[in-house]
């Protein structure tokens, strides 16, 4: 029998998790770098989903080359927000605009954020960027419609149609596609991954593919010494 696509399995896991109260689930991600081919589809999918402007990227893919010729290894490391359990970006915010939600997502309230960038400075993974209010069509005759189009984050609709938009001048970061999750959809980086390298699910669900895959392999996390307790694992 043909093996089921892991997207189908994770979709079922997601639907099961969404039936639980938010406080009883813990969203997490596992990235199998052995399966990542460095195609950047997740990066571009994310940029398109959230209409990200210049200077803002939620999920870049780091191209790492280690060793000395002829023993050289190349590895691609997609880097989303790590949704840390003890996020250093939260405690440093002077206005409480960023917080750890019940389901584990670290959120940003664009309406409260003053754009001081303290959180950007204090993320050990460089996962936060800053919306400078710049467009890709800056200094061209006309702003293109896609740059002012509505996008959805934190279960709200947002627009970057003027400098007074709450998003402009705010810190921005990956949030595991909160608005897609609410609608029962997997994060866009998961669905666009051609190598099926990204696993997503509820860490508190022992039956989920995420937890099963974590148990089978030898997962590692970056910069554990910071005490941030990141919720993104790598294989």
């Amino acid at each position: 029998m043909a093996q089921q696509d892991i997207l189908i399995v994770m979709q079922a896991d997601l639907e099961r998790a969404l039936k639980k109260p938010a406080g009883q689930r813990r969203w997490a991600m596992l990235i199998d770098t052995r399966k990542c081919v460095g195609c950047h589809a997740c990066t571009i999918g994310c940029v398109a989903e959230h209409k990200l402007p210049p200077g803002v990227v939620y999920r870049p893919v780091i191209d790492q080359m280690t060793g000395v010729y002829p023993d050289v290894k190349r590895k691609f490391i997609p880097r989303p927000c790590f949704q840390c359990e003890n996020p250093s970006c939260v405690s440093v915010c002077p206005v409480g605009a960023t917080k750890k939600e019940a389901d584990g997502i670290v959120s940003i309230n664009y309406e409260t954020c003053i754009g001081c960038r303290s959180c950007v400075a204090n993320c050990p993974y460089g996962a936060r960027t800053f919306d400078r209010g710049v467009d890709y069509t800056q200094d061209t005759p006309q702003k293109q419609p896609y740059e002012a189009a509505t996008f959805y984050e934190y279960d709200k609709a947002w627009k970057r149609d003027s400098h007074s938009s709450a998003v402009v001048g705010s810190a921005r970061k990956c949030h595991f596609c909160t608005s897609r999750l609410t609608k029962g959809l997997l994060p866009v980086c998961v669905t666009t991954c051609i190598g099926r390298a990204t696993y997503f699910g509820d860490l508190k669900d022992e039956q989920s593919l995420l937890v099963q895959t974590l148990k089978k392999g030898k997962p590692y996390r970056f910069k554990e010494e910071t005490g941030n307790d990141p919720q993104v694992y790598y294989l």
Partner: protein
Amino acid sequence: MMKTVRTLLLLLFVVGIAAAFGKAFIWGESVTKYGAYVPWGLWIGIYIALVGAAAGCVVWGAWLSPKNSDGKGTETASALLAAALCLAFGLAFVGIDLGKPLQGFRIFLHPAFASPLAWASWLYGLFFVCVVGYFLTAMKRPLLLLAVVCAIGFTVAEALFFGQMVSRPLWNSWLTTPLFLAAAASAGAALLLLVWQGTGLKVDPVVLTKLRKVLAATLVIYALVEGIDVAMAFSGSPEKVLAVKRMISSYGFWLLYGVIGTLIPLLLLLRTDRAVLAAGLSLVGAVGSKYAFVRYGFVPEPMPGLSKAFQDAALQTRYFPSPVEWVVAVGLLAGLIWVILLAVEKILMPKAAQ
């Protein structure tokens, strides 16, 4: 000569204000060079330097003012006024730097008790209340003491804000607090010396001699603490070593802070008639050292290869201030000097003459 200098300062100030307004309300961040991987730059460096100078100025002013004046003398008043103006201009720098300059007031409406920056902001507010109260009420001594407590408090809060940043190896050290206190002590003494000796105020020569000695001593202490911090950084992680190497080899650090801001002032302080120049240069050094501290804190990439992962001008670890950043910086610093001179002439001198 003095009139020409003041006209030039005013001109620079007006241009600086215009550029600052342009950034805040018209051009936005498109005219700045900081981005996601170097989120702070020249303006934040100047902000920290000015906050430190304000704190040191009020502390030394309260300490060295003649005790028989019961806190009512020109010396104390000038120290408080200079400190308040210095702090106000420092906050103007951070205000312009905000992504949403008009939203800065939220810091007072949304209490975030875990954030040292929030504590610093509340203490800035309380400090201004003390200064206004000092000039408008008869409760001089208690308000002066409370202002001193606030000044020490916001310097410590600033230091903790930087020192606790686990993601920035250059700053994440217990030595950041003594470093900020030492920097504030020397910059504050320099600012006070400029005001007491360089503006025409009539200050007791004995007090001025004491202040010159304080400036020399604090410059040496600051250099020692900085030296210890740098030496200890070399035994830290590779990222910390990289950051500290880049910092000490930068012009802002070794030239502006080391030579122009420390060595030359120490030599100049040997002569009484060169003390004002020494104070001015050491303030330039304070700005240089804080700019280097901020800028080179962002040298190590959070994850190796991150800045090459997504090609974008704002996602780089390179940074050099934009023309608008320079114009605002020079303009507002010129404005600070101009406003202090004006305040001494219009407020303090008439009061002293009474």
